């Protein structure tokens, strides 16, 4: 290759790179007629969480397009949109440096972010003090305990992983377990990832099991991110010897898929039940594993299930969105529903904040949109979301911070399972238990847990 050619190609690369940079920095110069608010998202579409981020981002995007078609957020309740929602997002591929720079980029740009959707627990934990300093809300997709305790500016889309696991296990033992009601303690094993996310459920479930006396956590084992079949089968045959009843796996759908297959191959399907959290939804697992082998799998879900309840209003809405904007055969699925839910929650929080500012300061809509800060989104928006159903993707009493120290936006779950090769809802909506660590109670948090501090719950 001759030298000039080389230099030319390198120059070409440089020029195209700089073009891309210029494009980015100029892309936010789009004029808008209506007042606008901006919501932000730092997501992971190429890293470890890609399989769950992509479908849920689809749902979120479609919801936002639908909202834009309606004219934006409807503040006054007249059916017409008043405030346009701008959506800024960055992709960080599960790399911390990219995450931080994306955050800083958002922070210094106008408009200043009020609420940022963030992916993955460690990053959200990292941001805890930073967000508190910057007074920006985190709307997080990772539900690890350290974010909740002590409470800060991190809001979570759902309950914590531990609470969800404890709730689902408890419900299963009380209502579905064949040996229920005989005073036998169920044996629970965790088989999950060795990461903050994977371990999140272990400690709270152990604590809850001891407290209720219904089950005990016998074993905790860790597999690789995408475990091989024999690896999992080795763990399972170990579990078989220990007489485990319930396996909880806090991971994304690949891992339960392999475990479920292993259960089937070892002929343990009826003896042990595998349960997963909301990121390992039954419908995705069914498509990977196939109907025969996936029999008996269960997961906890805070949204309506498109595959099982086509008539639920939220599912209809999701179907409508998919038909309108995407037309993909395998959508909507559970993740898609959650995508809608997340964006709807964020938009609703902003809406309530705007109403709150208008009432508090007596200003008009435009000024309110300019004035909006993270503090208002927190106090008037996120803290008051109780009862909001996020376009009916969840049940009525679902979205709810239960007190001023509560940072969860959902506290109800359902157990969803695979029965006869189909996704079925196996339980009514039940409230997940609240598993606050004792030292947090000693510090004086979570005293008024049952009180709903609804600053403003109007305009519903």
């Amino acid at each position, binding site marked *: 290759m001759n030298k000039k050619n080389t230099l030319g190609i390198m120059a070409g690369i440089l020029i195209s790179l700089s073009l891309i940079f210029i494009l980015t920095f100029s892309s936010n110069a789009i004029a808008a007629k209506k007042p606008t608010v901006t919501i932000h998202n730092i997501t992971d*579409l190429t890293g470890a969480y890609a399989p769950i981020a*992509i479908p849920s981002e689809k749902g979120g995007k479609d919801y936002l397009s639908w909202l834009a078609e309606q004219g934006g957020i409807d503040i006054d309740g007249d059916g017409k949109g008043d405030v346009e929602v701008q959506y800024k997002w960055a992709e960080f591929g599960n790399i911390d440096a990219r995450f931080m720079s994306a955050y800083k980029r958002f922070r210094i740009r106008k408009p200043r972010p009020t609420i940022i959707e963030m992916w993955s627990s460690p990053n959200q934990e990292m941001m805890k*003090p930073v967000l508190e300093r910057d007074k920006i809300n985190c709307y997080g997709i990772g539900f690890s305990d350290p974010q909740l305790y002590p409470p800060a500016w991190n809001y979570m889309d759902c309950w914590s992983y531990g609470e969800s696991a404890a709730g689902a296990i408890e419900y299963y033992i009380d209502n579905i377990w064949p040996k229920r009601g005989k005073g036998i303690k169920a044996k629970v094993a965790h088989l999950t990832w060795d990461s903050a996310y994977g371990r999140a459920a272990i400690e709270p479930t152990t604590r809850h099991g001891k407290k209720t006396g219904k089950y005990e956590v016998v074993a905790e084992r860790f597999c690789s991110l995408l475990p091989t079949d024999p690896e999992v089968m080795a763990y399972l045959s170990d579990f078989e010897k220990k007489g485990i009843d319930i396996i909880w796996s806090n991971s994304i759908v690949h891992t339960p898929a392999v475990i479920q297959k292993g259960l089937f191959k070892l002929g343990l399907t009826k003896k042990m039940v595998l349960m997963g959290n909301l990121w390992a939804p039954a419908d995705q697992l069914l498509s990977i594993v196939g109907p025969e082998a996936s029999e008996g799998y269960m997961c906890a879900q805070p949204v309506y299930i498109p595959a099982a309840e086509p008539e639920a209003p939220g599912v209809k809405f999701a179907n409508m969105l998919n038909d309108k904007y995407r037309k993909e055969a395998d959508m909507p699925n559970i993740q898609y529903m959650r995508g809608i839910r997340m964006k709807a929650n964020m938009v609703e929080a902003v809406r309530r904040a705007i109403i709150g500012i208008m009432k508090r300061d007596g200003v008009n809509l435009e000024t309110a949109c300019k004035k909006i800060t993270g503090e208002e989104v927190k106090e008037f928006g996120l803290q008051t979301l109780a009862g909001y159903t996020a376009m009916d993707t969840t049940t009525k009493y679902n979205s709810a911070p239960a007190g001023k120290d509560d940072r969860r936006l959902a506290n109800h779950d359902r157990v969803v399972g695979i029965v006869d090769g189909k996704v079925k809802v196996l339980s009514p909506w039940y409230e997940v238990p609240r598993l606050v660590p004792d030292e947090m109670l000693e510090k004086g948090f979570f005293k008024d847990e049952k009180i709903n501090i609804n600053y403003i719950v109007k305009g519903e």
Partner: protein
Amino acid sequence: MTINVDRPCGTFDSNYYQAMEIFRTPLRKFLMIAFIVLLYAIAFILDDYIISILIVFCAFSIGMTGLQIITGYAGQISLGHAAFMGVGMYTMAVFQEHLGFNFWFALPLAGLVPMIIGMLFGVPAVRIKGLYLAFASLAAHFVIVYAINNWRSVTNGTDGMYLHRPGVLLGIDFMIDKYYYILVLTVTVIMIYFAKNLSRTRLGRAFVAVRDNDIAAEVMGINIAHTKVLAFGIGCFYAGIAGAVGGGYYEYVNVEWFTLTDSIWYLGFLVVGGLGSIFGAIAGAVVWKSLDELSTLVTPITEALLGGMAFYASAAFSLVIYSLIVIVVLVLEPRGINHRWQIIKRSYRLHPFPY
């Protein structure tokens, strides 16, 4: 007769000290000082976003310089470098959390602890060579991550730890990003100066000797076992410092901060930057982290350009562009950016003659 084109034309050394200088002409000295001053001045001109990127550049330049010492100078391929960076971060966090050290006292310790661990994992290098060593050093990564994950009483397991920047010192509040940037930049400049000194003195020559011909080096009086282990030690010292200042920026550390991918790409971008020179190390770090940054920017743009239907295209684009740039740069310039830079300098010196 060979004409030496590695030096500026028309400069002659009149004593031995001059021959040992890093920059031989006053102009180059001046340019370097001006450049460093500019780097400091940038802190007061640019916004937090650029500064956050610059801090990452600085931290990874230190780390990359460390790997340059191990791999570029001493020729021992290490695939566990990011893990040592992690050890640095955790040392900082652990000493702050459990023993109440402040940033300034913890910083040297954050270098020394990885140094000791690095020397331990450097011992196999005495026996194992080449690619075998490269993948054996992966074991270091797994062992370190495993230890951090499971030594819960000290490292808080997978939950991560908070570490703290230095507070107010001499009226400078390091919680403000630009002042912290100045701190990091200072550390970087000092560390790189040290590395440069190392490369031109006794041990640096021994490193290169071991790299170029380890058997001959042993026979010519260089204790290669000692030298290799020391190379790992110093390289990991750098990694630890890099981790400490980088972790101080995030004020948080978690095992997911230094994944296996990071460890592997450390080596990858060292090659992109160019083996065997400090400039190459810095170039590698800067290219790596700019590409990282670029790919966060690319995704939304491609989506904006291609529309909502091209959703996956936008997600895949960052990966594709990232990898394509690495491939193209290396196919065109297998000896790295540093080599191309040398060629440019050389052709400038020889202008108007081509060779």
